[in-house]
């Protein structure tokens, strides 16, 4: 089940790429409302339909011990803004070849374990399901705060950042509030803080390194999740990323799961 959580974490990263990042250089001298800031983040998100990423996930425990996993991930934006992903571990050898297929934001999830030699369907992830014990739900990780299920307020505006408070309105959320630190120049969430029911800060997410291409598009190169309660960190390091690659129409299907190379 640990493997599944790693996969879910990576899926979350895919979603983060879509929503946390913006590339449009926006002059911020003018006063912006919170909705305008969120709209700019949405509008300036990388424009891609397919994506290929090779990354490393480094899991760091409270003693500083590290475990590293390398993986390849493909994603594709489907109709209705849903995303399909296919993720395969490349190393270490103990998990090499283990593959997860996630179709349309978890409408169908399959796990392929080479030792079992057959795909296992997994019940659709609940939006509130946790990723890797971080307490972050699928919904939280999607960072899709555009809709009316959240109230958003600018708490503070510094020279470089907007500090935005997001309060979920639904009863079935794990968090009392979420704080976004949005870069005023590049319009991406540099840091996200998650507060529990009694408003204790429990988790943080930081984009520590980014890359801006010639079109001004931003690719996050290093992302760090911190579980403050368990004193555990998970770092995602992007090694390679390609946008708008050609994928066959049946790529995100059962057929691809057991193929030796992707």
């Amino acid at each position: 089940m640990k493997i599944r959580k790693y996969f879910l974490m990576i899926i979350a990263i895919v979603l983060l790429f879509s929503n946390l990042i913006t590339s449009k250089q926006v002059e911020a001298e003018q006063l912006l409302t919170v909705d305008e800031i969120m709209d700019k983040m949405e509008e300036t998100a990388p424009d891609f339909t397919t994506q290929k990423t090779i990354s490393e996930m480094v899991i760091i425990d409270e003693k500083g011990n590290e475990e590293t996993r390398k993986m390849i991930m493909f994603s594709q934006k489907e109709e209705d803004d849903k995303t399909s992903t296919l993720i395969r571990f490349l190393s270490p050898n103990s998990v090499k070849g283990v593959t997860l297929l996630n179709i349309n934001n978890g409408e169908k999830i399959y796990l392929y374990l080479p030792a079992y030699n057959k795909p296992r369907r997994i019940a659709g992830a609940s939006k509130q399901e946790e990723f890797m014990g971080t307490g972050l739900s699928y919904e939280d990780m999607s960072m899709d705060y555009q809709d009316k299920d959240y109230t958003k307020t600018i708490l503070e505006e510094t020279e470089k950042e907007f500090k935005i408070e997001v309060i979920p309105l639904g009863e079935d959320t794990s968090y009392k509030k979420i704080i976004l630190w949005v870069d005023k120049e590049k319009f991406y969430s540099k840091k996200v803080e998650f507060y529990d029911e009694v408003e204790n800060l429990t988790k943080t997410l930081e984009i520590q390194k980014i890359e801006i291409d010639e079109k001004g598009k931003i690719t996050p190169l290093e992302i760090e999740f911190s579980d403050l309660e368990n004193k555990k960190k998970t770092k995602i390091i992007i090694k390679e990323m390609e946008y708008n690659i050609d994928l066959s129409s049946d790529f995100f299907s059962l057929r691809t799961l057991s193929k030796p190379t992707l």
Partner: protein
Amino acid sequence: MKKIIIITIILIICFLSNSVYALEFSGNLTYSSSYSPFSKDLSNSLKLEIKSFHSFTDQIFLEGDLVLRYTDRFLDQPLFIMPKEFYLSTYDLIPKVDAKAGILIESWGSSDMFSPLDNFNPSPFGISFTEISNKLGVWAINANYYIDNTTYLQLVYLPNFVPNHLNEEYEKQLYLGIFAPQFQEQGLEINSINLTHHIPDQPVWGVKIGKSFSSFDAYLSYYRGYYLNSYPQQVEPIINNSGMSLNVNLSHPKRDILGLEFQGDFPGIEGATLRGDIAYILPEAWMLQGKYLLKDPYFKITLGADYTTSSNLYLNLAYVYGLTYEEGTDCSSYLFLNANQELDYSKFTPQYIGGISLQDGSMLHSLGFNYNFSDNLSLSLSYLLVIGEKDSKFGQVKNNEGLFLIGEWSF
């Protein structure tokens, strides 16, 4: 057997030859040990599994999996060298068709344990409570035709039937134990046994159609083959120099299996997955000494559900009607539970596997833990406890009770 030896030699040459530097290798080294406190037997096994992979093009691949094992386990073959898998695979070389040919392991069935639909590959000697995949590869062709992204048709063809591997000495003791008392009642003292195996030379095949629906996947299948375990066909006492002996002819009854398998959302429990295999088995009528051992069609069923709680407790509960070694009227009901708990602050994972026969109440419990030193090195320790009378469902495997230690290094 000759083919297996040839393939093994080819694989070993490949592994040792510099000319195959293009092959990618990986593998694992597994040490396993078991100790029975009752028989005071300690056994050790060392298994090296080397996997190789070569990509000719984006569509054609060569994959191999060679197993070398040494064991000092009682009645087992000490040295075992065999290609577990060795096959050529093609993907979309023929539009919409993926195919494999060579020594293959086929896995039919959606359930996690004791699938009654998984009948292509034989098992090695011995019951394993510790290995995930405990099957031997067979020469086969597997072709999948993808009708669309959610529907496919699969054909599996084995040119020759390959039965389960049994140690001959064990088999002799088994049949001597069954038949000697019968003849003793007739006043005949049997002191030895000769076994003759007749292995069907007909092919084995199966077809399956699978469809993925929004909340579950379903598959219909048809298998035509033979029972992997042998059945006595003829038993004849003879007089020889050392006294009375028994000649037993063994063979494998034919069987047709209609299968339904499914996996998907568990109705009413979000996050739980339901998996099930239902087999309707039509056996060849098999008679011995005027009594039918197999005659009427029967069902074997495995229904399971797995779920991970918010505290990372993994639970897998299954109902089984008919274990691997039960057929026909011998089939009975069991419940199994597999549970493990991931701990946030530890590399320890406590594990439990338990089963109960609903027919006679006999039970097995395996309690232990897994410890991951690193991603590539792990150790597991467990104790298997069997509760039940000697002739009860689980009591029959009481000699497997004991302490199990497994260390695995992946490279």
